[in-house]
């Protein structure tokens, strides 16, 4: 049976080059042991740290810290802000791992982004202009809709008036769009996740300015400069380095350009297939800047919890949004964009790998339109 994987934002899938590298990986010892085997693994961990630093353009002074993934990273950074009792504004459209890290913290406010405004930055800045706060948590490329917030512009404007810590979830944009080198960036801390770029799951990275008030959330060892206890997930860390090699060999401009080539063709084929079957649809964020690997479309009057099963039975493996909320009728993250319930419940997210075969797009769109027609 032919299947098409259109859920790369949930997990990119192991890259072939990573698989090959893992086959030769010597996983004996503990990176914190002083002997030969320990030293070898420690070297792998440190080599990956430097590869991340280089890729992201961080300076030698910046923190580049490994953890188990984006969820831990978000909890960790939220913990640091809470420890300092900083008043925080959290974007209600952010992933649950960010929002829920602040549940019960009385200095947190969850603001909604108005998706009807012509520019997402304006929407955020207009709102924040009237607020008094010490830290902002805002996603860079939105995992469900693909919307990109110009986080540098927002940080610049906020910092021109007061001292504000800006923290951003770079999980979906990392490797997929051209980023400002971190040493030149006005963002104070970001986090990324390995399996979104083709490594093994179980590794995430926090990159933070040396001025960021970092403190350990998970204690119990000298690992990561006493900032994150527990043995490093060295196979996953090793695989992350090889995934980075893949993306850096292509270069961010070429990656973004290839993604947009696929996305533009996909959207035009999808629109014509849906129109020919008289299916009602809306691309809610069409006017906003978005990322090239994600298509978000909604079908008024339909329920994604129903049509996703049917799509799957036809070989189309897609989602309504974050895998963390799959099966649930409504994504809280979409509510964070102020999307009305009747539109949000008919959401379809198509997120694809860079090697998605463009020749299949007309067939895939035909199947989607056929399923949604009923």
């Amino acid at each position, binding site marked *: *049976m*032919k*299947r098409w994987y259109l859920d790369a934002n949930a997990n990119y899938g192991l890259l072939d080059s990573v698989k090959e590298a893992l086959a030769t990986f010597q996983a004996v010892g503990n990176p914190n042991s002083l002997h030969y085997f320990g030293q070898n693994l420690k070297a792998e961990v440190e080599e990956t740290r430097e590869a991340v630093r280089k890729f992201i353009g961080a300076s030698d002074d910046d923190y580049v810290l490994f953890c188990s993934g984006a969820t831990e990273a978000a909890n960790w950074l939220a913990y640091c802000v809470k420890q300092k009792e900083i008043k925080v504004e959290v974007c209600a459209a952010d992933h649950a791992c960010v929002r829920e890290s602040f549940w019960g913290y009385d200095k947190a406010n969850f603001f909604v982004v108005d998706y009807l405004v012509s520019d997402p930055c304006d929407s955020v800045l207009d709102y924040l202009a009237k607020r008094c706060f010490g830290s902002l948590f805002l996603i860079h490329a939105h995992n469900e809709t693909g919307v990109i917030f110009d986080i540098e512009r927002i940080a610049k404007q906020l910092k021109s008036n007061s001292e504000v810590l800006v923290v951003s979830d770079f999980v979906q944009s990392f490797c997929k769009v051209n980023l400002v080198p971190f040493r030149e960036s006005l963002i104070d801390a970001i986090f990324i996740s390995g399996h979104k770029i083709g490594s093994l799951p179980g590794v995430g990275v926090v990159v933070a300015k040396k001025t960021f008030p970092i403190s350990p959330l998970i204690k119990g060892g000298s690992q990561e400069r006493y900032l994150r206890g527990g043995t490093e997930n060295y196979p996953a860390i090793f695989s992350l380095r090889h995934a980075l090699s893949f993306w850096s060999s292509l270069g961010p401009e070429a990656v973004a350009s290839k993604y947009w080539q696929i996305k533009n063709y996909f959207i035009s084929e999808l629109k014509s297939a849906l129109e020919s079957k008289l299916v009602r649809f809306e691309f809610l964020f069409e006017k906003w800047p978005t990322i090239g690997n994600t298509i978000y479309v909604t079908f008024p009057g339909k329920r994604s*919890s*129903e049509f996703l*099963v*049917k799509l*799957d*039975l*036809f*070989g189309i493996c897609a989602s309504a949004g974050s895998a963390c909320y799959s*099966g*649930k*009728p409504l994504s809280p993250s979409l509510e964070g964009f102020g999307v009305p319930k009747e539109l949000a419940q008919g959401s379809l997210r198509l997120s694809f790998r860079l090697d998605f075969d463009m020749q299949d797009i007309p067939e895939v769109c035909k199947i989607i339109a056929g399923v949604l027609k*009923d």
Partner: protein
Amino acid sequence: MILEPGKQTKTVLCAMSGGVDSSVAAFLLKQKGYQVIGVSLQVWDYNKSCSALTKTCCSPKDFQDARLVAKKLEIPFYVLDLEKEFETSVIQKFVNSYLQGLTPSPCIDCNQFVKFGALWERKQSLGIDKLATGHHVRIIDWNGRLFLRRARDIAKDQSYFLYNLTHDQLSGLEFPIGDFLKDEVRKIAEEQGFMNSRKKDSQDLCFLSGNLGDFLASRTSADLSGVLVNIEANKSVKVDNIFHYTKGQRRGLPFAGSKDPLYVIKIDSQNRKVYVGKRSAALTRSFKAKDWIWNYHDLAEGIEGFVQIRSTHRGSRARVTAITETCVKVDFLEESLIVVPGQAAVLYDENNEVVLGGGIITHDSGQ
């Protein structure tokens, strides 16, 4: 792809609870040549509101069991979120019925509105040919019309819970284990290496982790305290929650020293009184039932057969007479029984085998 247009193989959506019956049902359907699609129903958020992870048919552990069986059978498997439907058509109705002094059967509502309601609609909208479950029940063709028939394993028969399935639904349903004894089902599961082959049967009130009275108290702001009235000794005792008592209950009543055993004979929820007396005071020879469904129009005037009045009862000889289109009078022919308003009364044929109709027992004794 499974739903390929023009594909010859018939498709079936099999509701898999994670128990042994529905697991074997999925296996038997596959044996029969169906393209099977497994599905579990999430009807209650056990992660948030209940610690009972094993007693039910839809807890996280049950989903896990169902998923592993589906994997073994190499069939697709989905968890469908029907919490909203369950809340509106089962839980809210359950609570309201109790507050009206009735003793509802939530399993019947869950079957009618969730499994053969919302899930049936999903099956239709997915364009899948049939829906199957692991219920112990059979379908028979009687002169060109389909009827529900008791299971071969009479001790496990579940036809009582499904009396209100329509003819259209029966024609789109499969009950693969209706012809098997429970031991045979377990044996098949064992042979197939299903890890749930020895799993206990699920219990009726799957969403209750504590006792009923406390659950109802958590769901209403109404005052549930009242009085327990012993009509034999003319004594009364104040109680915090009248719903800690159910009609027919014998144990746990605070009246010692009575010569004859005492039973709860009536619950008057409006005046918050629970009456206790001798068993004879609770017995009824006849009653009226509402929301009655006849499974065959020729029967609408009345018939003698067997009537089952609760899930554990096996049916008593009775005459059912139509009063209106949806209301009947039931007269037991050989004995008097404790009937509980709110429970279903299901009519079977003269051999006590085939479901001919059913409805809900009312407070009206029909006399």
